[in-house]
């Protein structure tokens, strides 16, 4: 096999929130606050190298644990961590996941621009068929849950 690298894709959410960067920073990097808007992290500390986890829904041989490691901490500006989980025996939800979550805050006139980039999702390269089939997804995705359950 050629070692052609598959393309990776990212989810980007970018919004301006009417609050100071310092306030938003606290919600992103304080365990008790993260629990209130996301999920309860385990063993979390906003320190580079820190390893923490989130418990999510298991699938197949995967226990549902998302393993994270803090990569970068620039107070009030940038916070990134790895986001890994899944098992090679699964397909779709619960398959191997090796991604990175990056939060970037920048002060704007009416508050703070909050940009989330969740990167490293593997999809076929330049696959026009993939794009053409987006309609098919809407029918397929709800059925995947059933498939995952049956693998147990």
């Amino acid at each position, binding site marked *: 096999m050629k070692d052609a690298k598959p393309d990776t894709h990212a989810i980007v959410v970018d919004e301006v929130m009417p609050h*100071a960067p310092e306030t938003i920073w606290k919600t992103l990097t304080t365990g008790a606050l993260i629990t209130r808007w996301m999920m309860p992290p385990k063993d979390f500390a906003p320190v580079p190298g820190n390893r923490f986890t989130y418990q999510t829904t298991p699938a197949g041989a995967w226990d549902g644990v998302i393993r994270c490691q803090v990569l970068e901490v620039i107070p009030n500006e940038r916070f990134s961590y790895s986001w890994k989980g899944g098992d090679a025996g699964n397909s779709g939800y619960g*398959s191997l996941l090796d991604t990175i979550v990056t939060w970037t805050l920048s002060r704007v006139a009416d508050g703070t621009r909050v940009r989330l980039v969740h990167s490293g999702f593997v999809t076929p390269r330049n696959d026009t068929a993939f794009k053409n089939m987006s309609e098919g*997804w809407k029918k397929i995705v709800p059925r995947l849950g059933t498939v995952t359950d049956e693998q147990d």
Partner: protein
Amino acid sequence: MIEAVAIDVVMRALADPTRRAVFERVASAEEITVVELTRGSGVTQGAISQHLKSLKQAGLVAERAQGRNVYYHARPEGLAPLVDWMSHYGVFWRERFANLRNLLKEIDP
């Protein structure tokens, strides 16, 4: 029922540019035979058959025999292993952003 295929099998099947091209042609046709796929492809019919075999094993195409002909069609659900995490987290983060906005309103009115 959908046969679950591991992500690396699907990735391997699509990593080869020729095989990906075969898959795209199958996907853009309703149904297509090996002979039609070979025409103008610049590779031999044997090579096309091998690629179709790999694509079939990866769950990306399926075949239907009619008389002497075998017709191939794409299985869009075969690509599911590659994007399902993304659709999951696409929804996840949008929901979390809404939660974050509400929490901020509460602690910093």
